[in-house]
Every structure is written in C-alpha cells, then in structure tokens.
C-alpha cells in the first residue's frame, strides 16, 4: 500500500501538481450495543480507500475513491489527475496562494501500544462482560432503559508526500460505557459511566475495557438515576462550582480546544463551526485563566485518542503549551496556517476523518495540568452550598467560543466539607476567560484521568475526529447557575 500512495503522489506531480500527498487507509470497527439485555446493535464496518491531495496554482485539490489491495493501484493515477484538475479549476480565485510551512520528509512506523488486541478477544467474552454490566443496573422499578456500549476501532494508514514522506501507522482505540435511564414523578434522568454518550474511549487494547469495571459501577448509576427523579432541581444563582473530570473534558474541549484552532481564527471555519475570540493579537498577552491554569497540547500523550507518530500533513507529533500560568501561549496549527503566527513549523494538528476527507486543523490531546490538592481537601476547603457537578448532559457555545451553557447529569450540594444531597439538571453558564479566570484550585495528579471525545464535529461537510482531554476535579468561583 505504501507503493500505491507513492504512485498517486508521483502521478500528481507528473500532472502538474506543485505539492502532493496521499493516504491509503483501512478502517476496521466493531460496534456492540446492548439495551435491556438484548443486543440492539451488532455491526462490524470496514472501509478501505485512497485520498490524494495536491496544491495546484495555489489551491488545494482533493480526490478520493474506495478500493482494496487489488485495485487501488489502478485507481490511484486517475484520482491524482482529478485532484490536480480540481485545484487548477479553482486556483484562479485564490487571493494568495496556499503556502506550506517547511517539513522534511519523514520516514517511519508508529503503532498504538496495545496489551490485548481487542479484535482477538472472543465475542462471547465481550458479550458476557456486557451482560454483567447490564445486570448490574437491574433492580429498581424506576429504571426504564439500560444501555451498554462497546466500541473498537483500528485505523491503518500508509502516507506518502512529495516532500519525501513515507509513513505507516496503526492506531487502535477501545471504548465502553453504560447508562441507566430512570423515569418517575414525570421526570426522566440518566446516569452514565464512566462518561456520557457511549462511555469513554482510550487509545489501547481491551485492557482499557477491563480497567473500567463496568459491572462494579452499574448499581451506582442505577441508584443515582432513580434518585435523581425525586431530587430537587439545582438552584439558580451564583455559587462555587467543583467540576468532575468528565465534565471538565468537555469544558476544555469547547472553551479552549476549539478557540485555539488557528484555522478558525483565520476565518476558514466561519461558514459553519464559526470563528474564535482568541485572535492573534491576544497571543502571549491574553489572561485566558487564573495563574493555576495550565493547558498542554500533546499528541504524544500515552492513551490519547490523537496520539500518533505523524499527522495527515506528515508532521511529527509534539507537545506545547496552549495556556501557561493562565496566559494564552499557543495555537493548534497545520502546515497551511502556521506561518500566520510567525511559526516556521506546523504543530502537527492536521487530520481527516478518513481517506474520504481532506485534512483540516483539529484539536489534539489537550489537558488541564493537575494541581496539588486532594479531592477531600478541596471539599473541606469549600463553603456550604457550593455545587459539585459531573457528566455531560447537554452543551452549547456561541460561534466565537465566548458564551457557553452546560448541563450536567448530576450534582451534589457541598455541606460541611462533604458531598451532600443530590440535585438534578445542574445548568451553569459563563464567559470563557472569566470562567477559567475564576479557577482557584485543581486536584492533584492522583485524580487526573484521560477522557476521550470520539465524535468531535468540524468542517463543512462535517467530519468527525477523536482526541483526549486529561483533567482532575477543579474549583471555579462565582459561577452563574440557571434553571
């Protein structure tokens, strides 16, 4: 397949391309979904194809088609010529030609470290584990739906570029989760473990699922969902908020990840996803958060869903600060946009959903660095009436990534330095920099966990990408709650 990618690049250059890259990709997945003990989803999709991207007359051209080991070599030259023609047909409209940050041709292999190949674990064992998880949620009349998900993904990619890149990567991600939905007193409430929306996903093998201990946590989710139906609504007003890690994951993603994608700042995503308040004049000067807020981008992070050897521009992975001691320090870039902030190299954030899609700038793994408090110390240090909230229920943020409103699955009121009564539908809203500026404590590394986002949508037509946000519970002051 490496030869096929190279063939496409060579043909594109022969057809007049000024730059060319090609990705042959094979995606294999296994998706299992159990509801109320019955398997309602059992799918094993595969996809195999070639995407060729060129620069011609200063504009991008991209062409993609499916194939397999036998016929992609026949498909590749025609696709390369189509990509060049596409660039040629549109190049005259470019006000300035696309210019790529320099990158030496990389040659290498990268594989996700996997202890236990998830595709080799027997279906009987997987279904047995799901059944145990399902049964752990039985036993309360209020429960109207029990769902258990298991998801495996293997992505094998061969890349070549006219800069001399020749890369082969195998990425494996495994995930699982459960959710109990209760209905009582005219109220419907859901609790999910370990995270909302099909659970948590981590780069790695089946060891990821075993470590989750789904059956050991189903009973707690069942009880919390049922009890939430008779719990009071989380009150309105201004209060201290302690966010759990899985909710912080989304808070980081929406209010730091997306606004620091440089293509958004430059208007490339204005037609759908939107722009960013974090414009270039704010770089290295804007107080993004309080001094305890450090957010590090890291595409080498062990277990990260965007952990790989190279991105789809063939740029090696790396680690760099986005926010350091509260100050806005860096963007996520690809080779096309890096020079807009006077950087001579891309940060390696270029990714496509599959061989079918042209790469765009994506959030990489981005984590809130841990502080030095234990969770118990944080609770003891927090006044009565403060709120602990976790697990995403719904989310919304404006197109400039300033005004957000999130609702969590569950909250508990803090009383006497401990977690107290359950509160349902906690909804908080705020302004990005004010919110991060109000962060005054972060739990220590012992409480730091990785939370995967497997369905980040961006682009037009929309593409889905995966990334991880690490976080430990953190405290925010004077947060506005609404009902």
């Amino acid at each position, binding site marked *: 397949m490496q030869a096929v990618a190279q063939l496409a690049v060579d043909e594109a250059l022969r057809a007049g391309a000024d730059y060319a890259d090609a990705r042959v990709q094979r995606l294999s997945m296994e998706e299992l979904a159990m509801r109320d003990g019955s398997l309602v989803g059992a799918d094993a999709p595969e996809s195999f194809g070639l995407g060729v991207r060129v620069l011609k007359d200063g504009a991008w051209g991209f*062409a993609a088609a499916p*194939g397999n080991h036998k016929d992609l070599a026949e498909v590749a030259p025609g696709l390369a010529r189509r990509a060049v023609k596409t660039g040629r047909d549109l190049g005259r409209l470019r006000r300035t030609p*696309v210019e790529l940050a320099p990158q030496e041709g990389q040659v290498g292999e990268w594989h996700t470290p996997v202890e236990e190949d998830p595709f080799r674990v027997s279906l009987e064992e997987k279904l047995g584990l799901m059944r145990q998880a399902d049964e752990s949620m039985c036993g309360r009349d209020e429960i109207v739906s029990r769902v258990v998900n298991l998801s495996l993904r293997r992505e094998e990619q061969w890349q070549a570029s006219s800069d001399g890149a020749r890369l082969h990567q195998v990425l494996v991600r495994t995930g699982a989760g459960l959710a109990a939905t209760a209905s009582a007193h005219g109220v419907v409430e859901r609790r999910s473990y370990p995270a909302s929306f099909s659970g948590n996903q981590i780069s790695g093998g089946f060891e990821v699922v075993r470590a989750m201990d789904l059956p050991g946590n189903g009973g707690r989710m069942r009880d919390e969902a049922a009890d939430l139906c008779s719990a009071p609504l989380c009150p309105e007003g201004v209060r201290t908020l302690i966010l759990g890690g899985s909710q912080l994951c989304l808070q980081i993603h929406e209010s730091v990840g997306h606004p620091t994608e440089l293509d958004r700042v430059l208007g490339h995503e204005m037609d*759908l996803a939107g722009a960013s308040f974090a414009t270039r004049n704010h770089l290295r000067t804007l107080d993004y958060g309080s001094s305890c807020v450090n957010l590090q981008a890291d595409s080498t992070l062990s277990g990260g869903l965007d952990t790989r050897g190279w991105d789809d521009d063939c740029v090696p992975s790396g680690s760099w600060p986005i926010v350091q001691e509260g100050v806005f320090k860096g963007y996520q870039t690809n080779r096309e946009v890096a020079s807009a902030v006077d950087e001579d190299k891309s940060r390696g954030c270029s990714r496509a959903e599959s061989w079918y*899609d042209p790469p765009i700038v994506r959030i990489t793994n981005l984590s809130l660095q841990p502080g030095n408090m234990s969770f118990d110390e944080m609770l003891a240090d927090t006044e009565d009436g403060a709120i602990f909230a976790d697990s995403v229920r719904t989310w919304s943020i404006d197109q400039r990534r300033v005004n957000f409103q999130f609702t969590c699955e569950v909250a508990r009121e803090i009383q006497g330095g401990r977690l107290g009564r359950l509160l349902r539908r906690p909804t908080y809203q705020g302004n990005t920099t004010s919110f991060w500026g109000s962060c005054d404590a972060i739990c220590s590394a012992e409480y730091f966990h990785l939370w995967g986002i497997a369905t980040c949508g961006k682009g037009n037509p*929309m593409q889905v990408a995966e990334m991880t946000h690490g976080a430990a519970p953190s405290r925010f002051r004077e947060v506005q709650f609404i009902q």
Partner: protein
Amino acid sequence: MTLLSADHALEVCQALVDASPADETEVTLQSEEDRFARFSPEGPSQNADRERHELSIRVRLHTEAGWKEARATVGTLEEEDARAALGRAMALAGATPPDPDRLPLAGAVEIPGSAPHRPTQDHSFREKAEWIEAAMSRCAQAELSPAGLARTTVYTRTLINSAGRVAEGALSRAHFSLTASPIDGSGDAGVAEQTHCDVARIDVDEVISRAVDRGARGRNPKPIAAQEYTVVLEPLAVSSLMLFLSYKGLGAEELHFKASPLVGRIGERIFPGDLQLHDDAGYADHPGWRFDGEGTPRSRVALISDGAFGLPVTDARWAQILDLPDTGHSAPQPSSNGPAPENLVLAAGNESIEQLISGVDNGLLISQFHYTNLMEPRDMILTGMTRGGTFQIQGGEVTDPVCNLRFTQSLVEALKQVTGIGRRQEIVGALFDGNIVCPALRLDGFRFTSTTEI
C-alpha cells in the same frame, strides 16, 4: 463515475443474498458521488471530488428462543471483501443472544421510482468557481469577508432481502451557502443558504444578496438585555429548533421510554390550528429516501395538525410493541436508535416576512441559531445562541443590529406562542445533521438568558 446502474446494484445485492448461509439476509448498497468547493477569505480552501460505496449485510439466524442478528459493512464492491463482510456478520450473529421480540423480514413492497438528477450530478468545479467568484466579488465591494460552500451530491440506494423485498431509489442535492463577515470585525456575519434537488433551482444571486445585506447591516451591534421578546425567526433559525423534533422526541421509542414531548399530549389541542408539521419523504422540492432502513415505504405522517401532536413515527418492531401502524421510519437494523422522522415539512402560512415583522411592537428579528442543543426531552427545553444577523424590531420595523443572545426555551411552549407563519418555505439545515422545509415564524414570549459583546 461510481454510481452503479440500478441493474448492476441489484445484481451485486442479489448475489450476496444468494450466497448467504443465514436464515434471513438483507443487503443494502449505497453509492455516493460528491463534489464540493469550500471557500474562506483567501478563496477556495477545500475542493474535493470524491466517491464511495457502502455495502451492508444484515444476517439473521432463527432459533426457538428468537432471532439472532448482526450487520457488517464494507466500502468496496469486490467479491472477496463482500464475502469477508458476510463472514463477519455471520460470526457476530452467531455469538449474539436471541431476541424474542424480533419479527421475520417482510416481503415485497411498491416504492416510487427515482433517479439521480443528471444536471446536478454533472455540475462541474468550473461552474462552482463561478458561484464562488460572484460571492467573493460582492463581499469585497461591501468590505465583507466571505466563507461558504458550493456542493453537489448524488446518492443511489438499493435494498434487497431474502423475503423478496426490493427497494431502490436515488437522491440529488445541490447546496450553496455564504457567510459574509465585516472585515473590520465590527459585527456578526450575515448568513444565507439554499439547498435543492435540482442545481438549476439554486438562486446564487439571492443567497449572495441576503448574506451581504445582513452582514453589511450588522455592523456595530448594540447591547440588549436578556429577557423575553417577541421574535420573528427566519427559516434558518426555525430549522435549529424544529430539527430537534427530528433527532429526538417524535419517535415511538422515545414515547415508550417517556422521554418525549408526546407523553400526555397526543391529540391535545395546545398549538395554533395553522401550525402543521408533517414528515414527508415525497415532498416535491426536497424528496428524501422513499423507503426506510428495512425497505419499508415511508408514509407521510402528520406530526402536528389541528393544533395537536399526532402519533409517533414507527418501524416494524415499535409498531408491534405499541400496536400502531408501521410508518416506515426505521434505522438500518439491528440498531440502538429508534424510529425517527427525517423529512420534516412545516406548512407555509400566509404572511410575508414584512408582515410578520410589522406585527411586532418591540422584539427581535433572528436569522439563525448556533449550536442549539437539548436540555430536557419532555418539554423539549433547548438552548442556543443567535447568529448570522440579529436585529431589533421596534414599531413594526427593523431598526438596529443587536449583540447575540443565548436562549433557553421550551420548544413545546414556544410553538404554543406562534402568532404568525410565513408564506415562503425554504429548505434549510442547522449545525447538526439534516434539513427541514419551513417558513419563518413569529412567536411571543421567547426567553433569552444571557448575551455576548458581539
């Protein structure tokens, strides 16, 4: 060209049904040709000419305890790959527990014929470049920064099962959108878009004029308090709200699990009588797939009529569980997703947009909502931000642009407060998936809960 002739697609599917050792087999082949040119301030930014297939095989094994079933999908038409997918589906089905609630596959049906619209399929990149050039030129004259999408896509889908069902059809889509933002950052952008099954029906000049007009008039917005307002929602804004009735709420499964606005409300006259919402895959200007994920013909379903919610949409399984007719709204099975309406059509009223505005003493004209999301399913409480042009209405006339606001509002309560319906329907979408055919609406008492600086 990737699209297969109808005969070729039938041949590929039938060969797999014949080769399957399962007790029942269903094969679906979807092919797609897609050409798009996306543009941003510097010109065309992503230009793609692409094609793909999805060959999906559902196998079912009968046991005394019920059906065991699974699905496998492959992206090529090679026999070797298809046979491998069949093997994966068989292995998965063999390991699954039997489900006593599953029904046997259903047999022959009549599906209205459809074919790809050839001029839309053949629309070239040079023609798309003309659209983009016009948008860039008009934006430059108005000191606005352009971004948008010019796209044409055609799809074919064929479904065959071992019970004798054959369903086939095609969809065509042409789309042009423009977001025009003040170059100096002095306001929010103007937004407009059109989608149609016939590329010749895209009025590029109108899309450009609307977006440029809104972008130019939106400079220097003034702050406005977050409170309840009477609002006139243009079709793009209406789509962000109404599409949630497509994603969640009007299917039989949500009703069964009591996570639906239908709970306790079916047949209750709570909305204005002229608010009519249907699911209609046969709508002439925006036809959808005429059969569902199991090959069942999609019925036209009255979701809101005579001021009341109607019955939910169903699939074969949920129709049996709830003793309702099968309306043909199934996802491909097996699936954890219940039936859902995918082709919403909100009926037109009789007021022009100017008449809708003239009926507002103190309110807002809203072009679009951004990142709307569902907070609570029973009352359909939604939150989202205004975007793409928000203007104050005073004394029945549009006055100043205002800073964007966040709404937090029950959709059920909002629809009770509809006081005017536009006479012009548009085919529009939102940030998440799907399109709806809808007019503008005027609503009283729409609740805003916070604001931004732009």
